[in-house]
């Protein structure tokens, strides 16, 4: 263990990999000093574990209906979070639902921020009319309320997980483009960009190799802070019946089905609601902590 730490904190790394891992180790040390961020990271880790080992954590099959055991309250032996109106175990459904949530989150993460980052850095780096066109396009997308735009898209494309993700991604990129552009504008005039331009580098290399790494931290922070919103929109689409389709155990969908007995059998809607709340909170705390860890401006000390 000590030799590993020594290797990680070696001021003179022997290879690119060691240098990079050393930086990651330092980032982790900084994150560790921020208890809310650590609890956020823990929640996200638990979510990951639940999704990865869902069959181990689930006590029942999430799809099997048992009408003799309808609407059992939490604490019932064998169903510690109770059952829903088809007699399905709510805990098992939440555990399997984590997979769907993570699936949606992951798909959004690999699409919206990447698109936003590209558009933002290109607009910021080139400036002029390129900037004008791209940013007005961004403004148009920003002008629509997100859920409404997503609804419209799903209405055109038809309901389903992939279409829901597509709709969310298409509505989520503009803020990233804004963030990336703002960051690019400050980076663009810096001496290190002038230096690499002076070495004959083309725009593609400069944007990808030199500008994007500087924008990445703010975008990553923004992504984790937005994750809660993405989960909620996905849940919202599910709730409206436009996202994931039954009988899949998507959390928003579960809330929607519990709505009917909200007053008598409150747990049916509340349990998945709590799951959404916890995971959103986790991502928010993590994002807040990452802001301290990744923000280049905080690296001065």
């Amino acid at each position, binding site marked *: 263990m000590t030799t590993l730490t020594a290797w990680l904190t070696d001021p003179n*790394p022997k290879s690119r990999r060691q240098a990079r891992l050393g930086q990651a180790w330092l980032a982790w040390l900084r994150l560790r000093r921020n208890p809310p961020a650590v609890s956020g990271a823990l929640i996200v880790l638990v979510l990951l574990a639940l999704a990865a080992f869902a069959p181990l954590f689930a006590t029942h099959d999430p799809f099997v209906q048992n009408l003799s055991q309808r609407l059992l309250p939490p604490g019932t032996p064998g169903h510690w979070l109770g059952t829903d109106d088809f007699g399905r175990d709510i805990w098992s459904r939440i555990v399997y639902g984590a997979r769907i949530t993570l699936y949606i989150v992951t798909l959004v993460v690999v699409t919206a921020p990447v698109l936003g980052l590209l558009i933002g850095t290109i607009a910021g780096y080139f400036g002029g009319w390129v900037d004008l066109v791209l940013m007005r396009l961004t403004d148009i997308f920003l002008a629509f309320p997100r859920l409404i735009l997503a609804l419209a898209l799903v209405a055109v494309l038809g309901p389903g997980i992939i279409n829901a993700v597509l709709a969310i991604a298409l509505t989520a990129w503009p803020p990233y483009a804004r963030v990336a552009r703002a960051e690019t504008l400050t980076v663009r005039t810096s*001496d290190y960009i002038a230096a690499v331009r002076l070495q004959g580098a083309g725009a593609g290399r400069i944007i990808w190799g030199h500008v994007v790494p500087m924008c990445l931290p703010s975008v990553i922070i923004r992504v984790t802070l937005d994750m809660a919103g993405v989960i909620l929109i996905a849940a919202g689409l599910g709730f409206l019946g436009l996202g994931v389709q039954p009988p899949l155990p998507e959390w928003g969908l579960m809330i929607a089905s519990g709505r009917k007995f909200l007053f008598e059998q409150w747990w049916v809607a509340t349990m998945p609601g709590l799951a959404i709340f916890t995971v959103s909170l986790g991502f928010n705390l993590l994002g807040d902590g990452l802001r301290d860890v990744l923000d280049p401006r905080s690296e001065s000390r």
Partner: protein
Amino acid sequence: MPEFLEIDDLSVTFTGQGREVQAVRNVSLKVRERESYGLVGESGSGKSTILRAICGLAPMSGGAIRIGGVPVPTPRGRAFSAQVQMVFQDPYASLHPRHTIDRTLSEPLAIHGLRGSDDRVIRALKDVGLPANFRFRYPHQLSGGQRQRVAIARALMLKPKIMLLDEPTSALDASVQAEVLNLLTSLRDEHGLTFLMVSHDLAVIDHMCDRILVMQNGAAVEELSREDLAAARMKTEYARSLFEASADRFMEQGLQG
């Protein structure tokens, strides 16, 4: 000796928010091969803008720049970057904060498709007096002087003929300044470099350069040889006031007067 770098009637005009600011007005200068030429002046005199205009980082509104008699192309292109490189003033701002020294130094080789990157990076570090085990450090793990050495190494990676030095030591401590100036001197001799150096410090310019152009408000005021400067033979009032205000004159007056 032939004129190597010629600047002919150069003007630079920045336009922003409907206003035009002429940063450089009709400046001409000629630098011979392996000569060191200094530009000196106060802030806003346009001295750094001339360097940036040579590199295509500032908009030329008039005049011509020639290297070896050939006008420089616009955009400058790769052939130009193999010929002319620049060292910036602030070593904290001129290295990419998220790239290792290795990446910073191998980038020019990658851009120009040159091979043998590993050997050349190690050799470059050695040339500027940095230990080889600094290779995978990040800029924030280096002191100001060490960073400036990296910046110099980066400028030398493409084996340029002309080095543009924009206040390369003004952000450094006196003892570190001496080390960096010494490094520049020995590299100049070793690689047969031509220097065009900008500074507000007459003593630094005098130490490094053969000829000096004094600038004020974007215009050339007076060209001085090193001998003229040492003997205080300046013709214009402004050049004299700069000379009188120079810090090392302070001491002579203060301590001997």
